[in-house]
C-alpha cells in the first residue's frame, strides 16, 4: 500500500443548529485520484474547507503528509494546490498578474516562465495579458487549475471542478486532471456530485451523505459489488422471458416491443444467461451492461442503505 497522505479522523462541524459534517473519516494515498462523492449539501465542501484550514472543525483530526494540520498549517498548505467550488480571481488584473499574486504567496519560487508554461499547459496560451474579467467560466476553471499547480504541489484538491461547465468544458477539465495524474504523477482529490465523472477517473472514492461518510474504497471494487442492468436484444422476447423466468434466478425489470429484455444480474452471470438463451434457440443480437452505481448512490441518498451502515 502506498503512503497515506491524507488522514481525516472523526471530523465534525456545526454551523449554528445545522450539522454540516459528522464523524467523517477517510484516507487518501499517494498517487490516488480520490473521488469525494455526495449530493449537493452533503458536506463535501465543508470537509475540504476544514482540510485547508478555511474553517475550524468542532472536533476530529486532520493529518496531511503525516503531520497534524492545526500545528503545521503552512508546511502542509505549501504542498497543496486547490480550487474550492470555483476559482475566483481579481477581475481587474490579467491572467498573468493573477498567477503572479498567488505564486508569490505559494511558498515556492515561481518564475515568470513557469507561469507562462502553466498557462500553456491549461490551454490559455495567448491570453496571458487579458483581464480575467473578460474570461468565460471555462477559461477561469482552466486558469484555476494553472493556479493550483504553479508551485508544483504534491496533492491537488478540486472541489466540484465541473460546476457550470458545458459538456466540452467538462471533458477538457477531465482530460486536464488525467494529464496531471499521468504526466506529473499528482495525487488528486476530486469532489463531485456527478457519478459518471468519479466513475471514469477516480481510483478510490468516498461517498458522503447528510454529512456522514457512508462508503469508502476502490472504485472498481465498489462497482463490482453492485448488480448490473443488462439488456439483451433477442429475436423472441416471449420465449426469452419464459426461459429466464423458469431457469434462472434473475429479476426481469423490463421488456419492450423492440425485443429488448432487461435483467438485474451480476457480472459473472451474463455468459450464463447468454448460453441459456442460445441453447434454447433464441438468437441474441446484442448485450449491453450498465453498472448500478447510480442506483446504489440514490439508495444511499435516500437512506435505504444508510441505515444499514450506521
Amino acid at each position, binding site marked *: 500500500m502506498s503512503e497515506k497522505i491524507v488522514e481525516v479522523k472523526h471530523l465534525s462541524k456545526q454551523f449554528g443548529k445545522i450539522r454540516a459534517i459528522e464523524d467523517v473519516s477517510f484516507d487518501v494515498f499517494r498517487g490516488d485520484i480520490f473521488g469525494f462523492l455526495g449530493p449537493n449539501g452533503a458536506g463535501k465542501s465543508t470537509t475540504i474547507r476544514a482540510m485547508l484550514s478555511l474553517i475550524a472543525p468542532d472536533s476530529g483530526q486532520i493529518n496531511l503528509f503525516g503531520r497534524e494540520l492545526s500545528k503545521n498549517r503552512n508546511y502542509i498548505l505549501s504542498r497543496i494546490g486547490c480550487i*474550492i467550488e470555483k476559482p475566483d480571481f481579481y*477581475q481587474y488584473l490579467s491572467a498573468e498578474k493573477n498567477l503572479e499574486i498567488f505564486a508569490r504567496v505559494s511558498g515556492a519560487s515561481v518564475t515568470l516562465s513557469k507561469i507562462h508554461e502553466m498557462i500553456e499547459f491549461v490551454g490559455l496560451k495567448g491570453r496571458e495579458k487579458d483581464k480575467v474579467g473578460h474570461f468565460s467560466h471555462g477559461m477561469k476553471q482552466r486558469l484555476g487549475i494553472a493556479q493550483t499547480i504553479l508551485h508544483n504541489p504534491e496533492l491537488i484538491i478540486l472541489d466540484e471542478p465541473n460546476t457550470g461547465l458545458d459538456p466540452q468544458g467538462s471533458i477538457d477539465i477531465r482530460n486536464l486532471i488525467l494529464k496531471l495524474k499521468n504526466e506529473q504523477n499528482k495525487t488528486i482529490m476530486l469532489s463531485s456530485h456527478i457519478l459518471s465523472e468519479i466513475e471514469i477517473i477516480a481510483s478510490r472514492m468516498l461517498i458522503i451523505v447528510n454529512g456522514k461518510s457512508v462508503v469508502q474504497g476502490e472504485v472498481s471494487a465498489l462497482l463490482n459489488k453492485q448488480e448490473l442492468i443488462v439488456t439483451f436484444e433477442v429475436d423472441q422476447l416471449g420465449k426469452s422471458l419464459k426461459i429466464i423466468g423458469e431457469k434462472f434466478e434473475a429479476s426481469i425489470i423490463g421488456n419492450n416491443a423492440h425485443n429488448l429484455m432487461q435483467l438485474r444480474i451480476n457480472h459473472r452471470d451474463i455468459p450464463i444467461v447468454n448460453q441459456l438463451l442460445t441453447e434454447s434457440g433464441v438468437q441474441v443480437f446484442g448485450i449491453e451492461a450498465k453498472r448500478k452505481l447510480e442506483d446504489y448512490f440514490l439508495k444511499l441518498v435516500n437512506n435505504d442503505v444508510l441505515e444499514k451502515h450506521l
Partner: protein
Amino acid sequence: MMFWKSTYNEFIKIVAKPRSYIGLAVITALVGVFLFAMKVDGNKYISIMTASFEQSIAFQGNLLNGNMMAYLVLQMLIVHIPLLVALVTGDLVSGEAAMGTLRMLATKPISRTNLLMSKFLAGNIYTLIILIWFCVMALGFGLLLFGTGDLVIFNSEGLVILPGSDVLWRFFSGFIIAYLALVTVANLSITLSCFTDNSIGPIVITMAIIIFFTIIGNLDVPVFDSVKPFLFTTHMVAWRSFFDEPVRTKEIMNAVLVLSVHILTLIGIALYKFNRKDILS
C-alpha cells in the same frame, strides 16, 4: 519574507483598482477648485475675516498667501479625507471575501496574521499617499500660486500670527498627527471589514461612526464630557495645536496617545476576528 511578499501583492491590487484613484481625483478637484476660487475672489474672503479686527489692528503685507491656503485646505481633512481613505481600506478584507479571492489566499501557506497585517500595512501606505498628495496640492500648489507670507489664523481663542519662516515645520508636524488620525480611520474600516463579506458595509459604518462620534464630541452636554477625551474624532483636529503660540504640547501628546491606543486596539480586534473567522465565501 512572506509578509513582505503579501504586502507587495496588496499594494499591486490597490494600484490596479480604479476606486483607489477616486481619492486622488477628489483631492485634486476639491483643492483645485478651492485654490481657484481664492485666486479669483480671495481678497473679499480676507476682508470678511478681518472685518472684526479692523478697528484695533492694521494688517500689512500678503495675508492671502500659500500658508493660509494650506491651513484652510487642511480644515477639509476632518470631513472629506476619511471618507476617501475608507473607500479603499474598507474593502480590503470584505471586498476579497465578496469576490472569493480571500478563500484562494487563505489556502496559501501564509499565516492569517501575516495576511491581515500586510493588508493593514498596504492600507496605511495608501493613506500616506493620499495625505502626501493632499500636502502637495494644499501646501505645494498653495505656495506656488499665492507665494509665502505670515500665517494669520482666526480661531476661537482669538487671533494668532505666525511668521512665514516659522510655519513649515508646523505644517509637517500637523500632517504627521493628521496621518495618525487617518490611519485610525483606515484601521477602523479594515477591522470592520473583517466582520462582513459585504464590501460597502464597512465603508458606510466607518463614516457613520465618524459622524456619530463627531456629533457627540460637539454636543455641549455634560454627560458626554467624560467620554469626549477618549473619542478618536476628538483628536482628528489635534494638528491645529501646532498652529497655536505656544504649541499646545499636552494636547498633542494626548492625541498621539489616544490615536495610538485606538490603532493598536483595532489591529488587535481585527487579528482576533480574522484568525478565528470561518471563510465560507
